């Protein structure tokens, strides 16, 4: 038992201090009142001979009352949903292709999907900026076809291109793993019984891969909902998603309690998909 504590102690202590405690403080500061000092809030819990509560739920009330924030949440969820759906649509045929490739080809193909992840997230966004800007490469190509020039950078299209590009490898990985592990005998049996390739896919392959597809969808949806960098670099300036609103409340307006309240609300909103994702992972 003592040996167990020696192994268990350091990581558990670290996680309590740097994961549990910060989230607790975040929840507390969401109920603080904004104030001028450094840090710019009045601690909601003070000590004057005993604990004294001097917090307020003003920040949370602001979130609920002002449609600006409600709209940001809805827009973020919608953007995350579209991103995850597009990723799934692109990733599924890719995973099928990898799983159906000759054994010697599978690992190199998988590495080709994952390697962009190692090339750095910001440089890849830089590529989209260079391609999409006015008079950029894409507009040049469109010009050859007699289209345009179009405004591409800082639009919803650029935002989604960047999001799908960044998150696509996350969607391919669980799907490819599941499709590689599948029992091919089931598909052969269906084909032997006279099913066309499309029927085999629709009635055997697809239903069996649904849990992996749900995992892939959530693996993209959850981080995409709070994404800040991609909307900020590629999206239209008026696309105020939660990540961006939180960022500007914190860095520009220095309203820390409101930023904390936004973070808390985002967390509560993402809790159902997170729990669902963990449940899917445990079953697999």
């Amino acid at each position, binding site marked *: 038992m003592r*040996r167990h504590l020696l192994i*268990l102690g*350091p*990581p*558990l202590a*670290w*996680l*309590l*201090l*740097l994961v*549990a405690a*910060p*989230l607790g*403080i975040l929840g507390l500061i969401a109920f603080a009142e904004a104030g001028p000092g450094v840090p710019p809030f009045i601690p909601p819990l003070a000590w004057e001979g005993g604990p004294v509560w001097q917090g307020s739920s003003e920040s949370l009330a602001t979130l609920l009352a002002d449609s600006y924030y409600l709209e940001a949440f809805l827009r973020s969820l919608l953007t995350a949903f579209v991103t995850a759906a597009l990723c799934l649509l*692109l*990733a599924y*045929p*890719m995973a*099928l*292709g990898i799983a159906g*490739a000759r054994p010697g080809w599978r*690992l190199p193909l998988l*590495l*080709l*999907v994952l390697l*962009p*992840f*190692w*090339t*750095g*997230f*910001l*440089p890849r*966004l*830089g*590529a989209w900026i*260079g*391609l999409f800007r006015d008079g950029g*490469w894409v507009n040049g190509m469109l010009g050859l076809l007699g289209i345009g020039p179009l405004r591409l950078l800082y639009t919803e299209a650029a935002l989604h291109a960047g999001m799908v*590009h960044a998150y*696509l*490898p996350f969607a391919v990985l669980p799907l490819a793993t599941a499709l590689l592990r599948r029992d091919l005998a089931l598909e052969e049996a269906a084909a032997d019984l006279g099913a066309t390739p499309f029927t085999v896919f629709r009635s055997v392959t697809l239903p069996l891969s649904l849990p992996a597809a749900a995992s892939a969808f959530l693996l993209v949806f*959850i*981080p995409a909902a*709070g*994404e*800040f960098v991609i909307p900020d*670099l590629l999206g239209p300036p008026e696309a105020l998603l*939660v*990540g961006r609103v939180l*960022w500007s409340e*914190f860095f520009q307006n220095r309203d820390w309690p409101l*930023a*904390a309240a936004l*973070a808390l609300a*985002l*967390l509560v909103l993402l809790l159902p998909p*997170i729990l669902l*994702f*963990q449940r899917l992972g445990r079953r697999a």
Partner: protein
Amino acid sequence: MRCLGLAIGLGFLWAPILLMVAYAFSADRIPFQWGGFSLRWFVALAANERMREAASLSLRIAAGAATLATLLGGLAGWALARFGRFRGRALLGVLAGAPLVLPEVVTGLSLLLLFVMAQAAAEAWLGWRLGRGAVTILLAHATIGMAYVALVVQARLVALDASLEEAAADLGAGPFTVLRTVTLPLIAPSLAAGWLLAFTLSLDDVVVASFVSGPAGTTLPMMVFSALKVGLTPEVNALAALILAVAALAVGLAGLALRRRGTE
């Protein structure tokens, strides 16, 4: 048909990256415009003192954070895989999994609030004036990396049969000998993969670092991010080409090492 889907996906993933690398060798000042072959942007990149300093800071933070993450995550993964049911297992599982699913802005803001509180406490009770910067970024990145290492190590240990370790113990090996001669060699590839993952995540992070850093600590991603806010520069193009070359080299070497071990 199957090949078509794969080709479309890989084309979408790779076209922007390959175009970017190709145009990194263009002499033109405007990115993605061909002005003849030139290495001038690589030269400019190497001469950029601020960029070099930021890169060196980022590499040091990433190496430190990845090492800490591997130590702590390895222990957490081991406890989760091998200790059976113990009190606190659910808590450890939830806490070790949290950084994997928390949005970056939430992780960043909550860690910053912790560091601000710690600063205030240290000043009030001990009279210490602590700053924020490289150290706070390192602590934050170690926490995130640790979650990934724990996941990788736990998965590897669960897949491995515990009977190997039990056999060594039955033959009289002490717990430390079992760890050194059986467990560690078996999970070494996972530890290496975990370290590399934590290193990459640290080198890639701009959101959490921006929250927890002070005025002194500007990492390379923070710098690239503020450059990209204004627009793409040929220097960022060159930087991307450089990173891709290093990443491809690392993957190629790892592949060769795997193949050699496979043939042996």
